[in-house]
């Protein structure tokens, strides 16, 4: 019984969320903030895998997010919506509730493959060079999208709302919050499993000392590839969900500014701390919303807060530790170090 505590709590939380969204107890605005929170959690935890646990410096996370967003959007619109370019829906709209998660996963897989393309040449080099390569990759993705006219180019791409509507018509439920919730939990779970597995221990080993890792029989090249693909793949999942929440994507949403936002979340939470990343993603989303009345001055205040953080707590909120290290009682529910 005790073993299932966490699952039960999560299931109840999901049920409450779905109920409140359905009965419109929480407004549309609050709901969208909650959903963006979930997406930010996926983004920051997945980037933490590369930047925190592995100690490399990737700063093109938004590029992979764009790949996931566009691939899943085009696929979804092609299958379930009437579109000028892609013609009538290929499948019956009632199938959409089954196919939708697959579409999101396909977006993630596409982003993982894009991650592989970046990983192969870049891991011959190290440190700063990876940062430069990932920035370049981010720009390449954006320019590619801007120049393909079939998917709207710089104007952006829309039609995803009708896919979401098709799901709602088939079974009347608030599908988007449910899927965002499920995918958020799923990706945090995957990263946690990966990091605490024997195989995944190779990732922090690379961070500490690559030579030592190699002579301890860790296949460092493969390990880097796997971690990078997992990270970019989850970014793609986040991008796909992002596209369907807004119902509209344009390349402007995935610029280097977005990548920087994700980086800020990782450093705010603490490198190599999963719960720190989750916490910081939640705080950061709330902070951005709270500062919304300041409008453009917001981008003065947020970086300033970052400077203060680096001055007074450079290791981030959690440092290298996890929540149960601070609150031992949590260990009952959630043993972090296996």
């Amino acid at each position, binding site marked *: 019984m005790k073993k299932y505590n966490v699952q039960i709590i999560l299931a109840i939380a999901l049920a409450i969320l779905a109920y409140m969204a359905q009965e419109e107890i929480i407004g549309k605005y609050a709901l969208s903030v909650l959903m963006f929170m979930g997406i930010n959690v996926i983004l920051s935890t997945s980037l933490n895998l590369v930047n925190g646990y592995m100690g490399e410096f990737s700063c093109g996370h938004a590029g992979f997010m764009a790949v996931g967003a566009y691939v899943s959007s085009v696929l979804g619109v092609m299958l379930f919506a009437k579109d000028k370019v892609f013609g009538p829906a290929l499948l019956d709209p009632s199938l959409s509730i089954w196919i939708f998660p697959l579409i999101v996963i396909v977006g993630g897989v596409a982003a993982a493959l894009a991650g592989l393309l970046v990983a192969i040449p870049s891991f011959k080099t190290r440190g700063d060079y990876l940062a430069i390569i990932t920035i370049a990759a981010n720009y390449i993705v954006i320019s590619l999208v801007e120049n393909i006219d079939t998917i709207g180019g710089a104007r952006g791409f829309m039609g995803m709302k009708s896919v979401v509507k098709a799901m709602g018509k088939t079974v009347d439920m608030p599908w988007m919050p449910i899927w965002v919730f499920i995918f958020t939990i799923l990706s945090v779970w995957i990263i946690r499993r990966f990091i605490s597995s024997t195989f995944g*221990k190779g990732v922090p*080993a690379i961070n500490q*000392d690559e*030579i*030592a890792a190699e002579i301890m*029989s*860790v296949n460092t090249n493969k390990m880097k590839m796997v971690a990078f693909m997992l990270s970019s793949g989850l970014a793609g999942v986040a991008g796909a969900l992002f596209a369907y929440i807004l119902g509209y994507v344009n390349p402007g949403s995935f610029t280097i500014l977005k990548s920087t936002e994700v980086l800020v979340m990782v450093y705010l939470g603490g490198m190599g701390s999963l719960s720190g990343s989750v916490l910081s993603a939640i705080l950061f989303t709330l902070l951005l919303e709270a500062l919304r009345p300041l409008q453009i001055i917001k981008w003065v205040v947020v970086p300033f807060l970052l400077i203060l953080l680096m001055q007074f707590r450079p290791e981030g909120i959690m440092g290298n530790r996890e929540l149960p290290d601070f609150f031992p009682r949590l260990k009952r529910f959630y043993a972090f170090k296996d």
Partner: protein
Amino acid sequence: MLLTVENLKVKYGNIQALHGISFNVDKGEIVTLIGANGAGKTTTLHSICRLPPPEAPKVVEGDIKFKGESILNTEPHTLVSVHNIALVPEGRHIFGNLTVKENLTLATYARKDTAGIKKQLDHVFELFPRLKERENQRSESLSGGEQQMLAVGRALMTGCDFLLLDEPSMGLSPLLKYELFRTLKRLNQEGMTILLIEQNASLALHLAHRGYVLDTGEMAAEGTSEELINDPEVKRAYLGG
């Protein structure tokens, strides 16, 4: 022959570091490779291990065979998991923020036999009682000598039967040096084959069965330890007198 190096020529970019050296190590032996700074000792070792770039030198000619099979193009991580060769690298390379025990267990990354790992751990603690005392201490808080013991212990934890050591005596006090070398001797008596790369020629030759003397990328002398110790040329150049 367990390890055979044939006519090895190695380059770093345009600079040739080894001009065709050959040597071999037989099962159960301690062989030492001695020489001054820049003689090519570490280059030889890195050619065997193929550590990740930029450390990896380029082998332009010659072959390295282990149990009759060329290991020139194998990846370094397979040395442990496939060939049972473990390396104690120069400068130790231990994981500083892990405890002693965590360092030791991490070395069993590729091993599946839980019982064997347990036995091995006891054996390492028996060889180095000092590691047992410091079991739960962060390894960066150990002294240099203890860190070197940890590096050797960690290599043993992989379950290897061939140990490569790169300058294990570097930065150690004389007393600790002797302690470490005594342990190496004992390991050899238990059946471990050892290739020792060392600057401290007299210490190395007193431990080893056979030795090779490297000089600016060429083999200057070879023979049993006694021959080398008594060789006037070697004596003058490396043993000081």
